[in-house]
């Protein structure tokens, strides 16, 4: 359950800013999820959840956004599951402006077994890793949530219980290194896959993917880092329970992480800035840039232009250049945040983000 009070709104008020694109995108996402919930009622069960990802999961929905969805199954295999996906697909198409992505990640069935058991190792394919990480960092359930909550709890329990330093408190910092490493792995995979897709698709769609990598993909990673750092920094804003359960309390840690990760990436980032008021100027820089990015994606002409640009043209395109400039602001702000020496951020970044 999302908290009623938005930290982005609180930060916006505190800083005297007006991030209209963020607010509008959030409103659109809430409406679209409600439409989906209504259209898909009765399709899910205690063993199946319909889960949405991407901009709809992050509360960054624009009129041109696609709807990335998965039927998450945590129960016995049933041949009828395929029929369910067809039914969901038909309903979603009525509500979406575009079809789901090409990589086969969405618009299909995901089984809990792979997500829970195959963390690392050869069987943990790119697709499986991405599904798992996106499930943790940018997913929302539309409809019945039992299977969704069970799977997330099982995944998180593995990250917590199998991280000796975290559970036994033997490390210098109380940070979930196992989980953080998987977040980092996924971020670098996305970055590498950008080059892969650019080559495989002969540059088609490279401009928009480039800009998304600079903003929304990066933000997902940022929220993952902050969620892991939050355990050590006792960032109350990153702990919806308000009280750190402490070392050795695995069920409480899993519950706390679960609640924290239910917040959207942008909310988690706002939570951090509410805890670090000496970084108000950095917060303005980051959120202004992100609001600008959403403004570009929300503007039909700009988005169409970015989507139509090939790799050989986009570097000199005015819309792309404007978006890239914003992304530099965003990046500089993030560097200021993660290398802030007045808090523990710099120390944690060096230890967990570098060596």
């Amino acid at each position, binding site marked *: 359950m999302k908290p009623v009070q938005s930290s982005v709104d609180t930060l916006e008020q505190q800083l005297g800013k007006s991030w209209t694109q963020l607010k509008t995108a959030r409103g659109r996402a809430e409406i679209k999820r409600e439409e989906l919930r209504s259209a898909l009622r009765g399709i899910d069960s205690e063993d199946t959840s319909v889960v949405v990802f991407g901009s709809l999961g992050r509360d960054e929905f624009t009129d041109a956004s696609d709807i990335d969805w998965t039927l998450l199954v945590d129960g016995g295999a049933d041949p009828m599951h395929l029929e369910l996906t067809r039914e969901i697909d038909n309903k979603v198409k009525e509500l979406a402006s575009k079809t789901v992505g090409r990589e086969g990640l969405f618009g299909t069935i995901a089984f809990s077994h792979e997500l829970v058991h195959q963390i690392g190792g050869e069987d943990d394919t790119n697709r499986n890793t991405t599904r798992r990480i996106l499930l943790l960092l940018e997913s929302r359930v539309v409809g019945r949530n039992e299977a969704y909550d069970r799977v997330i709890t099982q995944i998180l329990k593995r990250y917590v219980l199998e991280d000796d330093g975290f559970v036994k408190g033997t490390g210098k910092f109380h940070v979930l290194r196992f989980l953080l490493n998987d977040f980092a792995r996924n971020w670098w995979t996305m970055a590498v896959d950008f080059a892969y897709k650019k080559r495989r698709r002969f540059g088609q769609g490279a401009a928009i993917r480039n800009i998304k990598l600079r903003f929304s993909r990066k933000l997902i990673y940022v929220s993952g880092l902050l969620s892991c750092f939050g355990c050590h920094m006792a960032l109350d804003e990153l702990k919806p329970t308000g009280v750190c359960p402490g070392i050795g309390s695995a069920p409480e840690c*899993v519950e706390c992480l679960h609640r924290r990760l239910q917040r959207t990436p942008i909310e988690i980032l706002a939570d951090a800035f509410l805890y670090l008021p000496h970084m108000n100027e950095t917060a303005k820089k980051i959120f202004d840039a992100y609001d600008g990015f959403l403004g570009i994606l929300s503007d039909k002409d700009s988005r169409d232009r970015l989507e139509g640009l090939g790799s050989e043209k986009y570097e000199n395109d005015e819309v792309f250049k404007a978006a890239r400039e914003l992304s530099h602001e965003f990046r500089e702000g993030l560097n200021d945040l993660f290398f802030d020496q007045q808090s523990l951020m710099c120390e944690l970044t060096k230890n967990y983000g570098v060596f």
Partner: protein
Amino acid sequence: MRPIGFSTGALAFADFRRGLKMIDKRGIRYVELSALRQEELYPLFLGLEHLDLSNFSYVSIHAPSKINQNEEEAVVEMLQAISQRGWPIILHPDAVHDFSLWRRIGKLLCVENMDKRKSIGRTVKELNQVFDKLPNATFCFDIGHARQVDPTMNVAHFLLKEFGRKLIQVHLSEVNTRSKHDSLSLASILAFQEVAEMIPDNIPIILETTVSEDKMESEMGRALEALTAKPQLLAVV
């Protein structure tokens, strides 16, 4: 050793007399008399007068899991009369239509946490809504249901943490994917051990595992193993 017994329903379905005999024959002193179907309650109610329960140090009654709304008051009256003997009445919260009727049974009314098919009574949040309506009721922790709702046993942990002070009975069994009670598997034993230390040693454990008569002792042994906390797990949990 933990006080451990069986549900007559698990052993002999509606035939509580046969179930009771199977239990008594083995010197087991803890029993739950089951009237899981509404039509089983009246025969049980009448039969109680003629049952010799003198060998048993703990008796509870499992209320019907589905109750016809028009007959709810009569069902509650019957159960209330039975509870006068000091026996807890185990109740599935989703069977209730009118909570005010059930408040009459007071602390002898014992609310059980539900399996994943149900829409209420599965988690702390959902059970709190039930206890708000039945403030004096006690708690029957169904460890198999809790594991089915959440195999990581987090839900079980938080149920015991929140309602431990109300706990008077435990239901123990494997609950399979079809939500049927089954005999204990190694996976369920290992999972139950994770919360075993949160269950006080004096709380009666009622097995709901459907086992044949010749397997009763071995199933009790497995149940006791499941309720023995493992030191190596405790180190990290």
